[in-house]
């Protein structure tokens, strides 16, 4: 009961902090810019994607449509949205430490684990809201502006065209997997927050880890081959696998399991750290 009461508290705190709206506002602005850019010059972007084939083939039909825009937005924001989320979630514990309110909170009858779990649940809900908002803007607003149609996807295995009727469930599943990836980022920044005394550290640390792991993931060096499958950044783009034909079920499940495992481990670390912590501030 205390857990849910404090979760309400945490959601209230998130809802009344300006930084929560910076994240949502920035996401909205970024997407609107992409939509505007595509409206202004989307055809040349399409030309870039189909350039290799256009010597021999011609592409007919509505290539530049809302579904393609949604796909492009989801790709482009894979680095940006984690930053916006960690802006809020990285502040959840360290922000209270910095302001001194952690003292007030930790002398209440709620357990240390209850404090962490309620903050984690609130972080999850915030991440979910960001993901749903991303989905709404990229799918519905893009479709309203550009109409609907088949989706043309350029993977490293080639070009794939997915019929419009086959897209709704794919985007739904892609958003679920994207949410898992962002949830991992939120939990990571919360874990850093348990070790820090201010908000900047966790946010910078989270982004540094993502960037570093992403670079390691793209390096074609055999020394890293053993760890790549287990790095969460390798699986942050797992949502793209939903747009393959046939889509790799086992690879997607593998990504889901790795991400869920990361969430569990990071949450465990946060719980252990916060339970053992002496609050001296």
């Amino acid at each position: 009961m205390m857990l849910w009461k404090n979760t309400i508290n945490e959601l209230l705190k998130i809802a009344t902090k300006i930084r929560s709206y910076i994240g949502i506002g920035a996401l909205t602005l970024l997407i609107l810019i992409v939509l505007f850019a595509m409206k202004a010059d989307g055809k040349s972007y399409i030309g870039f994607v189909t350039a290799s084939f256009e010597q021999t083939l011609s592409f007919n039909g509505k290539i530049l449509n809302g579904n393609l825009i949604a796909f492009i937005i989801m790709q482009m924001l894979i680095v940006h949205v984690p930053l916006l989320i960690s802006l809020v979630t990285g502040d959840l514990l360290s922000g209270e430490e910095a302001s001194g309110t952690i003292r007030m909170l930790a002398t209440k009858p709620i357990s240390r684990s209850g404090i962490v779990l309620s903050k984690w649940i609130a972080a999850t809900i915030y991440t979910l809201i960001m993901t749903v908002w991303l989905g709404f803007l990229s799918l519905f607003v893009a479709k309203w502006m550009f109409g609907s149609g088949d989706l043309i996807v350029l993977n490293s295995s080639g070009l794939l065209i997915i019929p419009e009727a086959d897209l709704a469930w794919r985007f739904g599943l892609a958003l679920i997997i994207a949410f898992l990836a962002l949830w991992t980022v939120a939990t990571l920044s919360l874990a850093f927050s348990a070790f820090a005394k201010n908000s900047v550290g966790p946010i910078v640390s989270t982004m540094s880890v993502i960037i570093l792991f992403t670079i390691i993931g793209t390096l074609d060096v055999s020394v890293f081959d053993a760890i790549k499958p287990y790095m969460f950044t390798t699986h942050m783009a797992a949502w793209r696998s939903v747009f393959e034909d046939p889509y790799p079920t086992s690879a997607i499940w593998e990504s889901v399991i790795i991400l869920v495992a990361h969430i569990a481990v990071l949450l465990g670390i946060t719980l252990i750290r916060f339970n053992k912590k002496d609050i001296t501030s």
Partner: protein
Amino acid sequence: MALIEVSHLAKNFGSFHAVKDVSFHVNEGDVFGFLGPNGAGKSTTIRCLLSLIRPTDGEIKFFGKSLNQNRSEVLTRVGCIIEKPDFYKYLSAQRNLEIFARISGKDITKRQIQEMIDFVGLNGREGDKVSGFSHGMKQRLGIAQTLLHNPDVIILDEPTTGLDPQGIIEVRNLILRLRDEQKKTVLLSSHQLSEIEIIANRMVIINQGRTIVEGDVHELLEKQSMNLEISVANPSVFEETIQRDFPSLIARLVYKGTYHIEMEEDIRQPLIQRLVENGCGVKAVIPKRSLEDFFIKMTEK
């Protein structure tokens, strides 16, 4: 009945022993003074009491129950202010109290919150963000937060820090009301020894992480030898007389012509007589048995 029992409490931060061996108990209805010089381990001890810090050794009991094993149940009945109270600056006073009320372990209505706001004199300001509050207003809000869930034990760590004299008097009166009208038990840590002397009935003094003395305030003060403050017109004659006729006494010069001498009661009369006879020009003789003196004496050892 002892509401708080601390037995051989110890806390190490790495190789640093902040608290080595602290023991004391607080009875129901006490206003208990918790004293010690800077670095004695007071804050660490209080944080251990409130489960902010995990002790290295020792035991803490509230209401006869181990704090370690009954943390939630205990903290439902304990209210506290630790140093300056901190709030969510971006929220209003009312919203802050609602947040803490929600996790206090008791059902607290909005009406009760408003009554508490009125009680601490913040009515009319409850909708204002805490970021715009003065230190005194934050202290009042801290008291409101402490009392909101009607705790049985109240722990106050330096509650008058930064307050003006009026504020200090208000806090003192509040504590007395809590004790007399509401039968609360209060553990009070403060550097305002004069305040402790007025309002506390029992106390403990710790130093360098250990308990030095514990007991009834007045009984402890009664037992100590007297301090006389003597002001004389001829300091050199005074010092000569003391050295020659009362070699066992030590006179400490406090400021020009004024000395403090610690002595047993039966020496007071002969001393004053001799000083007058020798022409020291005795201007004033003031007997002192203050907590301040007692404190200094205890902590200098």
